């Protein structure tokens, strides 16, 4: 029998670089090569001729089928193999091609197009590229041109065989291919399609191009137009479903994604990847138990068959690894008794974090939105919350009570949308609910003051946020509190070590400024509140956003009434203690020591358990050079430990690492280096105290008798973080040379540290050093404005 002849048909434009790889892959296999060039300006035609191709040219008319069919018309072989120039036939597949064309059963074969992505992962799709040379078989479609329609019309679907032929596609490697150009070319074609030719496949292709351009909303619209026009049996339908889900996921539309997934899981029971995708949706929402269940289902089922789009998942998201990682997070009891009540306005940067922190343990999440203008309510709904809307005019107390009205569980947890339950306390919280006990719990609210989220840079206070759902309602306007309502029924509220983090500082600056303005305005307008409470609320709001001046301004207004309050109203309400501590902090940070000392002398005797006040007093003495008094007070702080957060505002470390570091400074000044170093060592071992101890070490390196980096090394503290912190404090104290040395060492050290590496401290220190140095240098060069502008 005569050996069947094979024609390779290609179309090309500016593919000189790819062509040799492609043509080399069919050497000794293809009996002829036909290439239709659509306007190359590079050496494509010359390269093709050098490989012995029959080259034709055809002007580009925004239609891929035309040049493809021109090539087919020229072919003289018995079979036709179609490749793109950025593809190659897998060297292992030559034999499979020979076997396929020697067989008489089929008119055409499905082959696998393999897209290598990163690090060995690949995405595989099946398509028809090998078929008999017959005039009735011609490509259709201006883009994503297909031969399948012609095949099925003429010979029926049974004429298409499966094969092991693999074609490797190199076009998606972003470092070598001009992908944007391809997308633009494809879009140009699609957008010129005549209205009558727009079918489900058209919208699918258009959506795919938008997806590649990163225009997810447009892509989703296209996919949603395509879905009703597409029958589940159509070849591209599973890909369409998968891309729709991926787009919904990328747009954080988890609720919609899960709805679609559950629908298509029933239609395509073999398409097990859909369970994996559902797991991802739950994971993003913090529903770990659900995610675990989906992963279990996925791992128990046989792998998705080749007819569906497959991809080897990124090893970081490997289903088995993922299941293992969330094993301990999946703690949801069968019928959780906890309702979660959220309130907020314009909290888009935060609300997802909040929901992720509690979705696992709540039976329901009630979100009362008070007039958001961003997509906060959309995010909340997509992540599983029941959303209720109230006008922007209502205050926090009203909003919380409205949420309580909707709750159905035995217990309620109340959160603001910019807060999150600390991960490590989730388990503690659930176990609490099964036990008999008080009607309410006071939780620790930790306000982070800077984006570094260092526990040392935060302020903690107590607030009753977890309670049994009875008829209790919040009271007060500027400080909503439910404790009085619980206590009047004779029930108790007890503190419990459960932490809620508040992340307001993480929002972008312009966002924060807007919120602060609205917040202050609302506080000013709270007409029914007494002025003293209002001033306290305004002062607190200012302090938490770093505005110490503003805090002083509001808090100073209450000062004339302080003594009266202290004398006349024992036992003192928490608000008075908060007032004294807050005002003291604000005065300290603005350097108003005289005023601060007056305040401390008045207040300290009334709050003997408040370490924070003692600590501030000691710091003032220290600043004034009265080291003996300072030392006594710092030692008193250490003896007391941090204040109880349930009664006071607590700056973490005020009774531990802060006085330790301060005492080290005093010893350093007395040239008692050993004592100083021992104290710093002690401070560094306390959680949150490391940065403070490093700062002290760098600050007093001269007194401690060695360069900062050597001191760090001697304590075994040498890492990129400590070096960066040292560089920053050294820059702030004008030790530029030492600062640069530490920065350089930090840069060298970080390269030796294992990932994940945090470059932020390094960059922050570098930036600080540069800014301060150039400011210093420019100070003496009054004429040289350029130099000052150089770094602005």
């Amino acid at each position, binding site marked *: 029998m005569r050996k069947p002849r094979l024609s390779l048909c290609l179309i090309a434009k*500016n593919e*000189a*670089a790819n062509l040799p790889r492609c043509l080399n892959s069919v050497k000794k296999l293809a009996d002829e090569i036909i290439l239709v060039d659509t306007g190359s*300006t*590079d*050496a494509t035609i010359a390269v093709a001729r050098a490989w012995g191709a029959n080259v034709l040219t055809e002007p580009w008319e925004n239609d891929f089928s035309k040049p493809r069919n021109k090539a087919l018309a020229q072919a003289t072989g018995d079979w036709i193999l179609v490749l793109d120039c950025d593809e190659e036939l897998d060297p292992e597949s030559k034999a499979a091609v020979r076997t396929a064309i020697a067989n008489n059963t089929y008119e055409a074969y499905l082959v696998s197009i393999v897209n290598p992505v990163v690090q060995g992962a690949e995405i595989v799709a099946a398509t028809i590229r090998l078929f008999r040379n017959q005039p009735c078989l011609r490509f259709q479609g201006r883009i994503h041109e297909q031969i399948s329609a012609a095949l099925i019309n003429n010979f029926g679907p049974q004429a298409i065989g499966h094969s092991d032929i693999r074609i490797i596609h190199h076009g998606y490697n972003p*470092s*070598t291919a*001009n992908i*944007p*150009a391809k*997308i*633009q070319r494809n879009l140009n074609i699609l957008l010129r399609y005549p209205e009558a030719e727009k079918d489900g496949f058209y919208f699918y292709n258009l959506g795919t191009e938008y997806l590649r351009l990163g225009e997810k909303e447009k892509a989703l619209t296209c996919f949603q137009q395509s879905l009703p026009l597409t029958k589940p049996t159509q070849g591209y339908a599973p890909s369409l479903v998968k891309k729709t889900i991926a787009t919904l996921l990328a747009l954080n539309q988890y609720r919609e994604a899960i709805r679609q997934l559950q629908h298509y899981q029933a239609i395509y029971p073999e398409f097990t990847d859909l369970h994996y995708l559902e797991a991802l949706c739950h994971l993003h929402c913090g529903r770990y138990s659900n995610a675990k269940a989906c992963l279990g289902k996925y791992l128990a089922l046989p792998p998705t068959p080749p007819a569906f789009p497959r991809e080897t998942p990124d090893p970081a998201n490997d289903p088995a690894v993922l299941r293992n990682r969330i094993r301990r997070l999946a703690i949801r009891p069968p019928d959780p008794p906890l309702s979660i009540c959220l309130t907020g306005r314009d909290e888009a940067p935060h609300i997802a974090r909040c929901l992720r922190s509690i979705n696992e343990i709540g039976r329901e999440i009630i979100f009362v939105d008070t007039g958001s203008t961003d997509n906060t309510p959309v995010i909340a709904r997509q992540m599983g919350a029941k959303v209720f809307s109230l006008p922007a005019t209502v205050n926090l107390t009203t909003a919380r009570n409205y949420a309580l009205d909707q709750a159905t569980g035995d217990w309620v947890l109340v959160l603001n949308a910019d807060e999150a339950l600390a991960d490590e306390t989730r388990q503690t919280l659930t176990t609490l609910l099964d036990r008999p006990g008080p009607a309410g719990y006071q939780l620790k609210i930790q306000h982070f003051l800077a984006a570094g989220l260092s526990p040392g840079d935060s302020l903690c206070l107590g607030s009753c946020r977890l309670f049994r759902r009875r008829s209790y309602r919040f009271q007060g306007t500027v400080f909503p509190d439910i404790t009085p309502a619980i206590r009047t029924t004779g029930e108790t509220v007890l503190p419990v070590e459960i932490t809620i983090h508040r992340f307001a500082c993480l929002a972008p600056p312009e966002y924060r400024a807007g919120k602060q303005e609205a917040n202050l305005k609302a506080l000013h307008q709270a007409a029914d509140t007494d002025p003293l409470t209002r001033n306290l609320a305004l002062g607190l709001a200012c302090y938490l956003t770093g505005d110490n001046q503003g805090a002083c301004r509001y808090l100073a207004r209450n000062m004339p009434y302080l003594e009266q309050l202290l004398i006349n109203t024992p036992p003192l309400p928490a608000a008075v203690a908060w007032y004294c501590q807050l005002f003291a902090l604000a005065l300290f940070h603005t350097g108003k020591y005289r005023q601060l000392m007056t305040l401390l002398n008045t207040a300290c005797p009334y709050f003997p358990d408040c370490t924070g006040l003692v600590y501030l007093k000691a710091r003032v003495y220290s600043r004034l050079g009265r080291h003996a008094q300072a030392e006594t007070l710092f030692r008193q702080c250490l003896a007391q430990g941090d204040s109880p957060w349930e009664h006071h505002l607590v700056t973490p470390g005020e009774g531990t690492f802060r006085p330790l570091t301060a005492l080290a400074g005093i010893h350093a000044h007395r040239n008692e280096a050993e004592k100083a170093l021992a104290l710093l060592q002690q401070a560094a071992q306390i959680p949150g105290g490391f940065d403070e101890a490093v700062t002290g070490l760098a600050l007093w390196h001269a007194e401690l008798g060695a360069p900062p980096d050597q001191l760090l090394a001697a304590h075994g503290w040498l890492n990129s973080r400590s070096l960066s912190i040292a560089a920053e404090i050294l820059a702030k104290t004008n030790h*530029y*040379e030492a600062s*640069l*040395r530490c*920065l*350089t060492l*930090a*840069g*060298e050290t*970080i*390269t030796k540290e294992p*990932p994940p*590496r945090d*470059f*932020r401290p*390094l*960059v922050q220190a*570098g*930036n600080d*050093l*540069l800014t301060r*140095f*150039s400011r210093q*240098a*420019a*100070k*003496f*060069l009054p004429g*040289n404005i*350029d*130099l000052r502008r*150089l*770094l602005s």
Partner: protein
Amino acid sequence: MSEKTSTISLCMIVKDEAENLDRCLASAQPFVDEIIVVDTGSRDETPAIARRYGAKVTAFPWQEDFAQARNAALDCAAQDWVLILDADEELPAATGKMLRSLTGTPAVEAWQFTIVNRLADDDEAFVTHPALRLFRNRPAYRFSGPIHEQVLPAILQNNPDEAVKHANLTIIHYGYQQDVLERRQKPRRNRRILEQAVAAEPDNLFHHYNLAVCCYLTGDLAKARQHYEFAFERLDTAKGFESALYRDYCVCLYEMGDLFQARMVATEGLIYYPDYPELHYLLGRIYRDLRLKAQAKACFENCTRFVDATGRYVTSAGVATYLPLINLAELAAEEADFPAAVTYLTKALTLKPVYSLFIQLGGWLGQLGRQGTAVAAYLTETFHLDLPTTAQLLFDLQAPATCLALLEPESTLPPPFLLLKAKCLLALGRFAAGTAVLAAIPDQSPWQDEALALQTAGQWLQSGENSKPGNCPGPPGVSKAQLLPVAWELSRTQPGLIDQIACLIAGSPDPIPGYLALGRYALTQDHPREAKMLLEKIPSGRQTTPENALLLGAAYIRLGAFEPAFRRLWPTLANDPENEQLAVATLAALLGQYHHLLTQGLALEPEQPVLLQELNNVIGPLNKLRRCQEAVVHAETPA
């Protein structure tokens, strides 16, 4: 189609072009049927010259509007086609001969050519751009725009895109030969006109674009960026200058140090012009600066693919040929892949021989273990270099023995080679032989000064350590400035004699002023390693003048040792805080070190967003400082 051969009118507008007009008309006259010259007020013999070539000369009063003048010429044209030339251009015969076949092509209304801008002293183009210069003579085809007048919009208004084709032929433009002053004056004058044009038509993107180019040329990058951005943001339909806008805007952003924005512009440009080599090149440079090496390599490789497309875009010389190769070579060398570096650089040097790059090549060959004769053999065989160049290269590569071996067989050497030979001998310590060779250099020749300086140095070194600087043996009339280059070359090849050479320069037994002078000279010659070595011989503590610190700091900075540079500069600056040069250098050291730390991190994690963002912030000031620093070093150069 049996159409009779079509005829051509050459249309020009001129003013005071007596110097150029001959060249232009002589080149074009054989290929056209009529010459129309519109004179806008010449005071020289321009009209007379034009008449000599049979031109119809019309006087037309200048009204600050190029389009008007051009159209006046078109109104006089009587032939089928119009050819546009400027007086400072030349029609190459190869292009002229093809004109008839162009005009005979059916369905084409207009042809574009590649304008090759040529520098006077260089035979090569430094930038090329496409321009429409030949079109059918139809009343509808008229120029518009008071400056950078265009006829293309009028043609496209009446025809599909396909009616305008690129002929792939060149026209030579000599305009850039004008002296530097005028090159700066012209954009300034144009800027005034364009600012008026923008004021009159604030929505005309072409005006904004041209104004941006003017601002860029006058060094006002911030203003240029504004106008580029204005045009860039509003581009919608084809205007004919988009590809150039992408290139020019990207160049401006790159020079300002905003690599992110520059990358965005280049990437977007490549969507529409995937075969524009210069955009690939610019993107490659951006990626290189961002330390994304794989992407940079891919871009540079793309540059050379589309060499055939260069004529269709505004293109700087070399971006599709040797420049990407040099970049690929440097990238390979950074990764210590010297075989690849040598291959790339060899390819680049065959396309464009650059002396300093031959030195670089020699250095890399050295890394591969090839020295002296092996290097010489490689250079002569690969590049067919002549004897003088090879000899000089070998000497500069510090291979005086090989250089000498090359020169010695030659029986009669012209004076420059005698000098080189003498230098080799002196470098090898053969002082007597060296001074003997110098004797053969004729008096009163242009090489005599250098010969005298060499002789002085040679005798000084020969006399050994007993000599006293007071009785410098050389003939009178050798100045220190003449001695310095010679002494520097000898000190490089004879490190053992440095102290003695320094004394010679110092003219005293104290070598320290000599170290300073030699160190500074080494720095101006771009040899920071040697400069550092010389300057470090000056004991610290003693004579740590701001000048010493500044030079040593500059040497360290050039060597990339920013932290040591800072350590030496900062204490000096602290004592002398009003010293502007010191402040600039110290800041450069600090910024340089920070930049180094960031790139070191990026080498580890190439797309680390925090580092990438910070790098983008640092590069702008760094570029500005580098410019300041260069000014400092040049100010230091002895007159």
